[in-house]
């Protein structure tokens, strides 16, 4: 039995077919999730009041979550300057992944390699650029030869460190997001297909199994929501950690305990 799976990956264009700006279903959903991200914060910041309510409260809570729990916890008090950048990552990935459990869409845009690859590439460019800006050309030397080990360890440590920082990190960032979303999407697809086949086209004995698969599919949707939040959080946290390591170099663990004396954790944003 020949299984031609690859026709599933050919998206027919909706507009501008064949060009670089081709609109097909994936690209359209990506634009929609980007618009939702921008719109979420734009709606939250117009007509600002001192006591936030409604959309402003939601936007502020989201931003403060990233600022306190990700930027300041990982990078220390001066990590707050990276909070807007990390908020963009977090909410774009969150809304893109959320399309997976949205009822009539059911397609996570991050399950196609283009988007996690570009996000990981952006993160990589940012932390390498920050590293070079802070330390100049000795950034590579600091990574390749971390201080405090005997000289013969450098023979295996240096290739591992260089490979890990410059090649493996963006690769695993992209693959982690991609594989989680792909696996969740495939699981949901399998269970919903089974439900449809058994309930609607099956014999009478197969219908209870169809009900069972339907219940499992509902449980999987709840589980997928947790995976969505965790994957967005992990991507943002790891980006923050890589930026922190690029800023401070490898002595970060010892310095961090001294500098974490008083992180600035605001519970409300100052009125603009």
């Amino acid at each position, binding site marked *: 039995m020949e299984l031609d799976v690859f026709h599933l990956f050919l998206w027919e264009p909706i507009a501008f077919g064949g060009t670089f700006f081709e609109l097909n279903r994936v690209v359209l959903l990506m634009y929609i999730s980007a618009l939702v991200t921008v719109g979420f914060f734009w709606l939250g910041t117009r007509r600002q009041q001192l006591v936030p309510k409604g959309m402003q409260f939601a936007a502020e809570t989201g931003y403060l979550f990233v600022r306190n729990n990700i930027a300041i*916890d990982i990078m220390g008090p001066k990590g707050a300057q990276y909070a807007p950048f990390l908020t963009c990552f977090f909410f774009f990935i969150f809304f893109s992944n959320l399309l997976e459990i949205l009822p009539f869409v059911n397609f996570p845009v991050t399950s196609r390699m283009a988007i996690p690859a570009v996000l990981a590439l952006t993160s990589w460019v940012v932390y390498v650029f920050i590293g070079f800006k802070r330390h100049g050309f000795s950034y590579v030397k600091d990574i390749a030869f971390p201080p405090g080990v005997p000289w013969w360890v450098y023979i295996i440590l240096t290739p591992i460190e260089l490979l890990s920082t410059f090649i493996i990190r963006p690769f695993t960032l992209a*693959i*982690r997001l991609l*594989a989680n979303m*792909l696996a969740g999407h495939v699981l949901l697809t399998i269970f919903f297909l089974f439900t449809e086949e058994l309930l609607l086209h099956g014999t009478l004995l197969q219908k209870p199994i169809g009900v069972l698969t339907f219940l499992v599919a509902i449980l999987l949707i709840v589980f997928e929501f947790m995976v969505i939040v965790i994957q967005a959080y*992990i991507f943002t946290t790891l980006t923050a950690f890589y930026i922190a390591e690029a800023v401070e170099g490898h002595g970060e663990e010892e310095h961090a305990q001294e500098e974490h004396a008083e992180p600035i954790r605001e519970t409300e944003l100052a009125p603009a």
Partner: protein
Amino acid sequence: MIELAQEAQASTGDGLATLAGGIAFGLAATGAAIGIGNIFANAIQAMARQPETAGQTRTTMFIGFALIEALALIGFVLTFIL
């Protein structure tokens, strides 16, 4: 006859590739399961011994979980490639 033999060899090759993909994912899932069990066991112990740091412990637990799960899911994606 030769075409049948060639087709048998091709389908055996495809069958072996599918089997390899399945075994790959099984081994990846085994390692990941052991690692994740370790992480959660130690996190539960830490949260029981010192409940004040439960928040920070829970955060670190989720980070460790995602890092290990990535390896298991790379194996899962490999099954589709092979």
